[in-house]
């Protein structure tokens, strides 16, 4: 269903009074729930719920060859698919731009933050490396799939165990999973600010997101920004962008806390 314009007008009016429909503050996430191992066949997986929004993320690995410009590093391949089951507005067919963008933004959040030690995914320099696939599927879209994808990717990677490398066949042995992935202890956070009317808010629900004029996704680790994507066409003043950065410096700690709590709780 498409959100009627009148709802948008009321959402914006509320924001002008400092309020959101569900009573949250502008910098407040809905409850984040992360569950591990939603799929046994994956090397690692996670289900992330942010309010009613839900994504599942799975990690698969196989043996590949390195790229010419990174002969001693493994490969990261991130993809996202917004499944038609996740709302009544998605059409069947090949992935639309929204899916592609979620995959690419999540890829950059992971890659640029230095979360993954790609050298630790090298088996034989110049010949054999691990391919690390991060695949994201939306199950229910109630807004903010972008940040849900980022959180899910981090959790799934944290929980993943690498398949054994079989020296004889030169292939991955999926019957034995042991080692954790070579990851940094600090996790990256994907945090998206949406401009609705005259205000920036985070974690919009579906209705709020429908009236988002532009969004800024900040990928960061320990408060250091490692990736940005401004999406949609509305312009932003340099001053307003500065304010977003100031708010991000506070909010990332809150989000990190709730993610780490969930990851710790479910640690094997």
């Amino acid at each position, binding site marked *: 269903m498409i959100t009627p314009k009148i709802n948008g007008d009321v959402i914006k009016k509320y924001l002008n009074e400092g309020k959101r429909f569900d009573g949250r503050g502008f910098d407040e996430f809905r409850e984040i729930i992360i569950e591990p191992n939603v799929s046994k066949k994956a090397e690692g997986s996670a289900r992330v719920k942010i309010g009613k929004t839900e994504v599942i993320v799975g990690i698969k690995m196989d043996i590949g060859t390195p790229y010419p410009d990174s002969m001693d590093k493994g490969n990261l391949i991130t993809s996202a698919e917004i499944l038609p089951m996740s709302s009544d507005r998605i059409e069947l067919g090949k992935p639309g731009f929204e899916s592609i963008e979620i995959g690419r933004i999540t890829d950059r959040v992971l890659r640029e933050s230095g979360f993954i030690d790609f050298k630790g995914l090298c088996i034989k320099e110049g010949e054999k490396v691990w391919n690390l696939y991060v695949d994201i599927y939306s199950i229910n879209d109630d807004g903010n799939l972008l940040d849900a994808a980022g959180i899910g990717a981090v959790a799934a990677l944290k929980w993943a165990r690498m398949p054994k490398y079989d020296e004889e066949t030169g292939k991955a042995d999926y019957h034995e999973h042991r080692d954790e992935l070579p990851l940094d202890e600090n996790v990256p956070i994907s945090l998206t600010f949406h401009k609705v009317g005259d205000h920036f808010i985070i974690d919009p629900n579906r209705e709020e997101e429908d009236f988002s004029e532009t969004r800024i996704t900040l990928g960061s680790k320990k408060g250091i920004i490692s990736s940005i994507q401004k999406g949609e*066409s509305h312009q932003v003043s340099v001053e307003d962008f500065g304010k977003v950065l100031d708010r991000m410096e506070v909010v990332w700690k809150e989000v990190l806390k709730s993610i780490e709590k969930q990851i710790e709780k479910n640690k094997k």
Partner: protein
Amino acid sequence: MTTKKSETKSSGKFERPDGRKVNELRPIWAKVGVVPNADGSAIYASGDTIAIAAVYGPKQMHPQHSQNPEKGTLRCTYLMNSFSVNERIKPGPNRRSMEISKITEWALEPVLMLKDFPSQVIDVHINIIQADAGTRCAGINAASMALAHAGVPMKSLVTSVSAGKLDKTLVIDLDKEEEDFEEGEGPTDIPLSFTGDGKITHMQLDGKISPAQLKEAVEMARESAKEIHKIQVKALKDSVEGDKK
């Protein structure tokens, strides 16, 4: 102001591979009217990066079900030539080029009065014929000039430039060698686009940077965009004067 500060900070310590100052752009060359069939066109070269843009429209959108009766559609296609880089690119669109096409639309849309063109489409085709980093910025600059050259009503031109950080030093307009810089904190690339009055219409970032330094980098980019803006305007004026002769 901000630009000066980082210049002194780095002086003596850091040198760019091609000897440019931290806030110095690569040599720019720009010209409009390079694709005779198009309604508007431009070529924009920044160092060894060269982009051509051609505009067709506003024209009726086909198929009819793609028409938007509320406002016109801006449709950008960014394409890198297969031979524009060392390792040949498989021809045709890929996920990267699709994203940059969309980013280009978002960067340009705020200055266009698309509401005046319901059910119409403006096609912008961008071709990178030689790539040495900063191709999306060059593409946006060329596209913006091509739109103006086509006579599409615009509030201002859009000017794009990338700010960056090499190890700890802020610089402007990274080339490929700098993009592959591996010392210290490595490279950070921040492509940005601005309207004529300095509002941000596009921003991306890859790398590592503190919020405080990022603010400084954005200011630096805004200053450099003013220089590029002048070159864009001059190229457009030159074409009009050429017509008079």
